[in-house]
């Protein structure tokens, strides 16, 4: 790019090239656009959303008649300090419902992963579960 073109980019006319002092007079944002078309013209706009899959309803499992004499699993999904909270709950059960068998388990993997062997164990040996899912 030559000097002349660069200066004309600045808004300086090549005829005025040799000025010794300049002053910015009117910043660009003095301008405001005038929209020629009528502002109340009507338009349609497409919905930008993707297509969600329908959700399959899952019936909840039948409830217990009472917790007495049952085995309850406390499942720690791996969030910070979730285990400590569940251990306090275990102490609470031991104190208030001594006939309840409480089993504490930390789910394998990070909180984002599944743990089928644990679910199998709970299905076989447990009657109910309490899951700490978010910190």
């Amino acid at each position, binding site marked *: 790019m030559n000097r002349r073109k660069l200066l004309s980019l600045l808004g300086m006319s090549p005829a005025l090239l040799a000025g010794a002092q300049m002053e910015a007079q009117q910043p660009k944002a003095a301008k405001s656009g005038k929209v020629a078309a009528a502002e109340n013209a009507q338009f349609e706009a497409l919905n930008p959303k993707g297509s969600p899959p329908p959700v399959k309803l899952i019936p909840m499992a039948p409830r217990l008649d009472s917790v007495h004499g049952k085995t309850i699993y406390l499942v720690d999904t791996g969030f*910070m300090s979730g285990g400590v909270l569940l251990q306090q709950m275990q102490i609470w059960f031991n104190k208030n419902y001594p006939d309840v068998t409480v089993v504490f388990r930390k789910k394998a993997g990070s909180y984002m992963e599944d743990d089928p062997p644990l679910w199998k164990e709970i299905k076989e040996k447990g009657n109910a579960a309490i899951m700490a899912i978010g910190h």
Partner: protein
Amino acid sequence: MEKLGIPSVPMATKSFADLAKSNASKRGMPHIRACFTPHPVWGKTAEQLMAYVEGNDPVSGKPLMQEIIDGLTVPLIAEDTKTGMMDVNVGPPVYGPDTLDNLQIHFLNNGMTDFLPIIIPTPEKVDAMLKGSSHHPDEVVGKMAAGAFAAWTFTVRQVAVNAVMAGCEPEYFPILLAVASSGMAALGSSTSSFAYSMVINGPIRDKLNMNYTIGAMGPFAQPNATIGRAWTLIGKNLGNGGIPGDTYMGSQGNNTNYNNIVIAENEKDSLWTPYHVQKGFKPEDNVVSLFAGEDIRQGHGARGAGVLENPMFDDQISDMFRTLTSQFDALVICDPLTIKRLVEQGYDTKEKLTDWLWKNTMRTAKDYRDSAFVYTFHYPRALRGEEPYATWYKCPEGTLIPYWPKPDNIVLVCAGGQTNPFFQVGNLTYRVSVSIDKWM
């Protein structure tokens, strides 16, 4: 659990009340009996947590343990045992007719934007965008979810609507289709506020006048600005991401989510192999590569930087790694001047430098294990015997170990306008490279 016939009660802290309910609904259990503890749990002593257990659920106001026991024992009502399918409503296919101003407000108020002005996606504009690709408007491009949610599917046309809104020109469209086809949303659901980035390679950079010189990562060119922004809109509208408290949980948010750090590689001024060629593409192929992680930071604070007459950029880059987490990798963006200097020092390939960086950047096993992310993500893998994490968890605290399993975990790209030999370091992990040409 409920599927297995075992009654269960999910428990979360109060902050997750909305999320837990909306999630249960998305998973088909709108009536699940969730209960809540005060927030936070992390950082509380056993005594403080016992007070939570003995106290009330802050959402319902009822004693927590009574609520849990009720949740497991109170009989179900008919609603709770319903089966079948439940549709999710996303509104009509077309809005309006209305004025442009009103449509702008409608899109803004309904969470379909990043809260900045959009180009209204009229049928004419969307049709023009569709001309930017040979793919059929009804072709299904992919599936996307912002986390562990049911993925939404989307078509070429639906991507075009978002591209128009972001301010993209039709010739940018193949890049957007390539990005969308990856299924990666630029807004993750985690409570960590993740950052995303894309590296663009090939002749398309010049065809679209992408900026890869002065101000490469700033707001100085239409393709860089709008393509990056479109990724966020795609994450919101096609992947149902970015709803705070529901599909977005980042506690503090990330300021790079506005543009998602668009990097067009400066292949012309780089003395190294372009990134897409490293990934097995030809130089004339057009490719977009996606990254996810934490952030990007400037290298100015690195030790050794001040040796002005003899800058050692290898040392400086290595020094910057000190405050990165090993859970994410390193993406180093070098100005061409930095690369020239590194080549003069003997690093005539990217591999030579990544190899040196990998071998010479070490931390103690203690420091490694002391990172929150390592605990959450690597520790479970170590327990399963996965290497190198298993070894890294077994060795004594003082053992020096590398930051990442392999030199490949360090990625180098070139961008910048050669006004100063600077570099930036992203704590970002490579995810995938997608051909743009396939979407032309």
